């Protein structure tokens, strides 16, 4: 276990290092921030001054080394726009994105698993087929269009829910979140549903496939031969087996929800990281973009790791061990 952990940490470090080079190079190739930040009337001298102050006059590899040295100390540069440490700007936005992603995840589990279970147990019924048809829609309708339709229906026509923004966060039990208030839930409702639809469709299909496969297994027949109720056979024997792939996929999806909630956050003006990154790209605020991408990679690595650990808890046949030697 310890060897496994060390190995994983080293792999994670390597991925981060490679990523840092790629990100740094990729971002450097995009435009010249001086042209945007400094007023066009500034003299050549003023521009040079600004360039020097921001460290943009150094050769590329030196800029990278400076970046790396600072990064190791937890400093991913200062935002040109906010004039604050980039990481701090991102962390300020992170809770909003996390909140949105977690609520979307909640809908995914709450609706995806039961609907998939139903569709898997009654594949030939009208309800089962309807669920599957619905899941195809969930997959194929573009997220921005669904988002606009949600706003049209529930905000404009019915007026039930607010269409944009996040409610003022409140701190309770040491956790600051907008979800402590009813208003917060009203605000998060439309964007989270928008974000969740594709995930729900995915989980429905995954659950259904898992259930149909598991129902044919000998261990299900044996469980029934023991005289267990259908409820226990499905709730324990089938569910425990299909939870393994579902948890894996959900974990990985949580990573991408956090990282790529860009479209949803833009449509619903949700003040999270996704919206920040779009704004920063427009303004060529390089440190923010670099910090955001590094942070995302870090997060995905972290989530993958958590999924691995969870996997071994769920599946006794998998034990975390040093498979290399």
């Amino acid at each position: 276990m310890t060897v496994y952990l060390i190995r994983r940490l080293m792999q994670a470090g390597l991925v981060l290092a490679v990523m840092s080079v790629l990100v740094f190079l990729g971002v450097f190739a995009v435009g010249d921030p001086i042209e945007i930040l400094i007023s066009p009337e500034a003299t050549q001298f003023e521009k040079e001054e600004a360039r020097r102050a921001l460290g943009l006059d150094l050769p590329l590899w030196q800029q990278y080394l400076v970046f790396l040295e600072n990064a190791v100390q937890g400093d991913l540069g200062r935002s040109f726009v906010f004039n604050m440490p980039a990481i701090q700007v991102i962390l300020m936005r992170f809770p909003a994105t996390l909140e949105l992603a977690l609520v979307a995840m909640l809908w995914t589990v709450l609706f995806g698993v039961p609907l998939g279970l139903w569709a898997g147990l009654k594949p030939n019924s009208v309800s089962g087929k309807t669920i599957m048809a619905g899941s195809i829609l969930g997959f194929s309708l573009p997220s921005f269009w669904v988002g606009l339709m949600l706003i049209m229906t529930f905000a404009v026509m019915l007026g039930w829910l607010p269409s944009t923004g996040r409610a003022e966060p409140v701190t309770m039990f040491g956790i600051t979140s907008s979800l402590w208030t009813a208003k917060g839930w009203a605000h998060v409702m439309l964007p989270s549903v928008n974000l969740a639809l594709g995930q729900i469709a995915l989980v429905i299909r995954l659950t259904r496939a898992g259930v149909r496969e598991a129902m044919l297994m000998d261990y299900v027949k044996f469980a029934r031969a023991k005289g267990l109720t259908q409820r226990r056979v499905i709730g324990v024997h089938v569910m425990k087996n299909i939870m393994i792939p579902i948890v894996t996929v959900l974990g990985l999806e949580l990573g991408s929800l956090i990282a790529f909630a860009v479209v949803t956050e833009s449509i619903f003006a949700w003040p999270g990281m996704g919206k920040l990154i779009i704004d920063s790209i427009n303004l060529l605020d390089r440190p923010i973009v670099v910090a955001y991408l590094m942070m995302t990679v870090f997060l995905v690595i972290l989530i993958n790791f958590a999924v691995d650990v969870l996997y071994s808890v769920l599946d006794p046949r998998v034990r975390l061990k040093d498979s290399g030697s």
Partner: protein
Amino acid sequence: MTETLVVENLATHFFTKAGVVKAVDGVSFRVGRGKVLGLVGESGSGKSVTGFSVMGLVDPPGRIVSGAIRFKGENLVGKSEEAWRSLRGARIAMIFQDPMMTLNPVLRIDTQMIEAVQAHERVSAEEARKRARDALGQVGIPSPEERLKAYPHQFSGGMRQRVAIAIALLHKPDLIVADEPTTALDVTIQGQILAEVQSLARDTGTSLIWITHDLSVVAGLADDICVMYAGKVVEQGSVDDVLDHPLHPYTNGLLGSVPSRNRRGEPLRQIPGMTPSLLSLPQGCAFQTRCPRADAACRHNIGMTELREGQFVRCVHPHQEALA
């Protein structure tokens, strides 16, 4: 004496897209209290489906279409799912062929045994656990207390089958359907398991339906034999009668393919050809395509005839010379 199980004209069909598969087509047999019935036949002859029918575990597209399954005098066909459930595992238990697949891989042995106890009796988890431990000890699993905490993959195939047997024995059932429980195991383990199940069943007065494709397994174990071919019983009788003077050419063929001390030095004879598809059976006897004695008369359907007292056969040209 009331029989533990009487199966009459059982028909279990699968309604598939390709057509109706008559996996079990008019099967009758009886198993007396404490008796062992050997259900024999090549793979695909409908043995497992017969076993699942007796358990009420035939899944769609399959269904029992007619016949009766009388368990201690009571017909189970048409009973509610709850009535079946309360019998399953309690009065009628089943052991499956592949021990690697029958235990749930992600649940501990104790979970799987305790739930089996509690499915039929209102006892505390503590009491159920004690029962589980004793059952494991009974089937020869060393240090059962610790093994309860293990997962199936931590057991060998033979040990897993012992666990399955222990589960089947938990409620001292009246009948156990054992569907080729030793086929997937090493020969030495096969022998041990066979001997153990036999003695355990004898101790508790449990009747057994022992399904196998291997006549040599049944020879030392069964009281009666039922030979199945393509969903029908072709010969049945006491184990001595059927093995000493088989009347059906198919039984004869099966016996010829089993090594025997009496015929040492003779080559083993295989039955030529393959089991026919159940979707395209010939008119009349299903075995005619592979039978050395077949002629035009075999194209007519024929019932079971009692050619010897207690020995029945479904054949136009039985080996009557064996009776002489």
